[in-house]
């Protein structure tokens, strides 16, 4: 048994970590938080130059073809550094969808540009303040083009390309839409995590083309989400580790009652529980990484398992990191809230914990 990442894959991770330590510190995250930048375009450029956006994209389409195991570890570092870049939208969602469902022409046109970071892609699904289902999508494609609106689209304000779930003649389709085209309007929206760009997209007779099979949009979305969930889970685990490290560092240095606060069992045990949640999630992520990279039939169950435990771990670690810091943890000045915000943003991006708990049990029932 070799249940670990290879030296080559660890090298990709280390290279990513080194770059982000140098170029994407908390000051860089705060430039987006405070509205100086819409996203960290300079970091994004560096990510592109390193070829990270093309980590799992085939060489034939301009990628590095280092595989999904490497991409998992890149994702972990993106999470650890709370990177304010559209990496998840463009790489785990748009590039994956194009690779899975695109025609050769679509892949040839878009994947090299996504790999090069020149094109940012995203996925647009949610329309209302309820969980999306196959029945409540009202965006529609007719002879007059694509019409309707998407309420919350991650990186929607900066993306060039969106995969839009919309109703066609045969049911739900996944449509490719160039957002600079006619009939597309975007409006920036405020969210719980201002370090990530988010927008409402409105379509009024916009041009679009089918991605994959007509009427298969919902099924394609579920397949895409099963793969993306693994990568999101790695981001979450990376963030959880960073939040735990921050809590431990503070508890070692901060004194109260004449002793370091980390010596109090009330806090020590809280941090032990953060560690436990993190390690359970990390191990589940390893298994899901294997399932993703080997396209195993276990993927839906493994992905849901990793996603559920990674969401729990990041939410717990970011929440209790604030608790360890006490009042200072609730200030804008301390970085605790950056993890807290990101953990809750990532938790909802592919559907929240309740959605993935249901997916997990469905996959379990199918596996039985």
């Amino acid at each position, binding site marked *: *048994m*070799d*249940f*670990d*990442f*290879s030296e080559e894959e660890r090298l990709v991770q280390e290279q990513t970590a080194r770059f982000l330590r140098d170029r994407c510190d908390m000051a860089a995250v705060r430039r987006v938080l405070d509205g100086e930048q819409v996203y960290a375009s300079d970091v994004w450029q560096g990510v592109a130059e390193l070829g990270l956006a093309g980590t799992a994209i085939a060489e034939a389409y301009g990628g590095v073809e280092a595989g999904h*195991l490497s991409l998992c570890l890149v994702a972990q570092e993106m999470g650890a550094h709370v990177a304010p870049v559209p990496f998840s939208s463009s790489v785990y969602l748009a590039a994956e969808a194009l690779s899975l469902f695109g025609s050769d022409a679509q892949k040839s046109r878009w994947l090299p540009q996504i790999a090069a970071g020149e094109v940012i892609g995203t996925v647009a699904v949610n329309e209302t303040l309820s969980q999306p289902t196959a029945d409540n999508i009202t965006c529609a494609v007719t002879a007059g083009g694509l019409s309707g609106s998407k309420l919350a689209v991650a990186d929607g304000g900066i993306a060039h390309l969106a995969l839009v779930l919309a109703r066609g003649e045969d049911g739900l389709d996944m449509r490719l839409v160039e957002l600079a085209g006619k009939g597309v309007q975007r409006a920036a929206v405020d969210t719980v995590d201002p370090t990530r760009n988010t927008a409402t997209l409105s379509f009024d007779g916009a041009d679009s083309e089918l991605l994959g099979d007509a009427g298969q949009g919902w099924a394609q979305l579920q397949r895409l989400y099963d793969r993306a969930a693994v990568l999101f889970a790695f981001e979450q685990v990376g963030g959880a580790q960073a939040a*735990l490290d921050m809590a*431990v560092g503070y*508890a*070692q240095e901060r004194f109260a009652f004449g*002793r*370091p606060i*980390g*010596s*109090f*069992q009330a806090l*020590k*045990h809280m*941090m*032990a*529980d953060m*560690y*436990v949640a993190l*390690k*359970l*999630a*990390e*191990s*589940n992520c*390893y*298994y899901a*990484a*294997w399932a993703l*990279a080997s396209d195993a039939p276990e993927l839906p169950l493994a992905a*849901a*398992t990793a996603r*559920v*435990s990674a969401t*729990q771990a990041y939410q717990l670690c970011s929440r209790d990191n604030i608790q360890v810091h006490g009042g200072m943890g609730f200030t804008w000045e301390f970085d605790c809230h950056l993890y807290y915000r990101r953990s809750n943003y990532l938790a909802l991006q592919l559907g929240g914990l*309740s959605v*993935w*708990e*249901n997916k*997990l*049990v469905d996959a*379990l*029932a199918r596996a*039985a």
Partner: protein
Amino acid sequence: MNFNDTPAEAAFRAEVRAWIDANAPRHLHDALASSTFGGLNTGGEDPITAAKAWQKKKAEAGYACLLWPTEYGGRGASPIESVIWGQEEGVYGKLGGLFIIGQGMCGPTLMAYGSEEHKRRYLPKLASGEEVWCQLFSEPHGGSDLAGLRTRAEKDGDDWVINGQKIWTSGAQHSDYGILITRTDPTVAKHKGLTMFFLDMRSPGVDIRPIKQVNGQSGFNEVYFDNVRIPDAQRLGGVGEGWRVSLTTLMNERMAIGGGIPTGVPELLELVRDLAVQGGPAVDDAAVRSKLADWYAKAAGLRNTASRAISALSKGDIPGPENSIGKLVAGGLMQDVAKFGMDLQGFGAVLTDPAIAEGAARFQAMLLRSPAVRIEGGTDQVLRNIIGERVLGLPDDMRADKGVPFNEIPTGN
């Protein structure tokens, strides 16, 4: 990343599988498989006899205590071979419960601190199950605070004379020998006045009294020492070195117990597949689904963490610190799972008659045995301290007894 054996591992697995096929006590298979948590079902056969017979057969074929050197009754196998053996032994491994403490903790301690003569005399019979060992550590005043123990050992000629009481001694009533930690000097700090011995459990003055537990069984005992004499030659490590020796034992305890500890989650999955709640299949109920997902993810996390440890062993590395979470997660998880498994069955789930209750009363057995999992071999609270201090590097707690001579430490009574 892959889950395949190396060629050498595959060859060893095939060899082991063939031997087990040909030699395992198959007539016990179904009974063993239906054993509930904390109970060993040997289908009416005397469990001690059955356990010793299987252990002897394994030892004769070189499959006992695989990690030990051959001259001490082991196989000199690699850690990964030992793991493969455990996977293949499967349900028959339940017969090994009688020997876990002796082989998992006393053996390694003897190996590290015993004389060559003692090792050759005692280890092979410990490996073959001919002799059973127990570990006499915990006391009424020394549990989580083990170094607070009070059992005295006083030198008298070439002997030591032991007086005091141990408690929570697993399997003492079946044991031939035990390792015993005592206080030899109460005037120095508590960790410094301890000394380790081993003794014949049939020595005059040893009185073993089984403890009736919450679940009605008596796996644990009180052991009283009334002027029990132990030759100085049976001392393990130096006088006053007992704490260091005990750390060897306890390190092995956490490895042994944290390994493949049950959670009850597979049993719950099985239960909800066939059960109806609120007029529909339990597995379709929203409350059931949410708990199932949460608990499945935790149990999977433990399984995948174990796989990481096995992978490290396979490469000749030492498993990482994440391995320390096993018992902490599993204990509380089983308690929750047991309660919920019964909840879904209604008031009838209070019944404990294995002939009537679901799955031979497996959830009821878990309910009544799981509190002990959260205490034995390091309480949940001690384990959190260990994770906090040794894994995360948080500062030690302030100790009221630090550096204080043992006989001046406040006791509260």
